């Protein structure tokens, strides 16, 4: 994302939600422990997609996120696998490079710029979760 495009419409929010944010659904998603992510925290951010990788063992959204001053930070967001996402209603075309999207994620405990997707608000306004039984998913 070029910084000029970024500043106008996108903002970075950091919200921390505790308590109820322990997701029983995580073990259903995939093949590794999710302990590297802080599932008690939720961070909301908006930015421009630089890549959407519809791959195994996980799908990734690469996101350029500008702050209020227009400085851009890059985030890598992990999703479930294509199979698990499709069971929740996703299509491989739901996100594309250059889309402006908003994601809620559980950040890495290490403080690095990465996280596990909770929900994504995609370009047509739909809110998609990260697996069946989550927001936007099928039970």
């Amino acid at each position, binding site marked *: 994302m070029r910084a000029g495009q970024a500043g106008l419409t996108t903002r970075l929010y950091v919200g921390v939600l505790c308590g109820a944010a322990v997701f029983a659904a995580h073990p259903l998603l995939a093949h*590794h422990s999710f302990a590297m992510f802080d599932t008690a925290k939720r961070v909301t951010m908006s930015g421009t997609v630089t890549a959407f990788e519809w791959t195994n063992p996980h799908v990734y959204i690469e996101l350029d996120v500008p702050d209020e001053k227009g400085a851009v930070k890059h985030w890598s967001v992990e999703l479930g696998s294509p*199979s698990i996402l499709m069971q929740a209603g996703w299509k491989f075309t739901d996100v594309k490079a250059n889309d402006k999207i908003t994601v809620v994620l559980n950040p890495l405990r290490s403080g690095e710029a990465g996280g596990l997707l909770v929900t994504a608000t995609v370009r047509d306004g739909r809110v998609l979760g990260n697996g069946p039984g989550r927001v936007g998913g099928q039970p």
Partner: protein
Amino acid sequence: MNIRVAAFLLLWCAGAAHAQPPPDLSGVWAPYRPGRGADPKLNPPAPTPIVLKAQYAKPYEARRAAEDEAIKRGEPLGTAAVQCVPYGFPRMMAVALYPAEIIQRQAQITIITEAFSEVRRVYMNQPQLPIDEVPPGYYGHSVGKWDGDTLVIDTVGIKESVLGYQNTPHSTQMRITERIRLITADLLHDQITVEDPVVLEKPFTYTLAYRRMPNYKMVEFVCENNREYLDEKGAVKMKLRER
């Protein structure tokens, strides 16, 4: 009706019932997770306890404690999954929500699980090989036969590095017997009994349940974008991209 005619009819009916073709298990099946209000009769029975011999129980418990501790720290210990190595049998039979496809032919039943595209081939109505003649691998050597409406599969030859149910260890002498049968037209149970005279004090049994997924098309799974790695402390980390 005299008694001889009655006896003949009874035997004939029993014979006819016995000669019925086995049920067709072909199709795609997903792990069944009973929701609220689900019929308890469809639930798989509870597993029996896993009792390891003392010399195996100690390291197993120690590893479990270390894993729990590492997860609390947020630095999960590495498993085969970090290298994107498949699960192997029997863990492949229950991976999260991933479905399994059964292709049933008279001479061979093939089971393909979606996560990692793992494949088992079950050779029907053949004698099992002696364990020591099967090169240890991820799927071993499986033979099957029908016991009425139940498919009975015998598997030997699983590599020691391929961990079992609940990550239990096993020896090359492990033998796994499955009894697979339809509970309803759309619900399948796979009762799995693990015997291992070297590692286990006694066999244990657990049952997996699957629901039919009509018209589901199996999704490919090639582990091409594995971003997990182990850091110098042996903790699982995620590779991040630069801009």
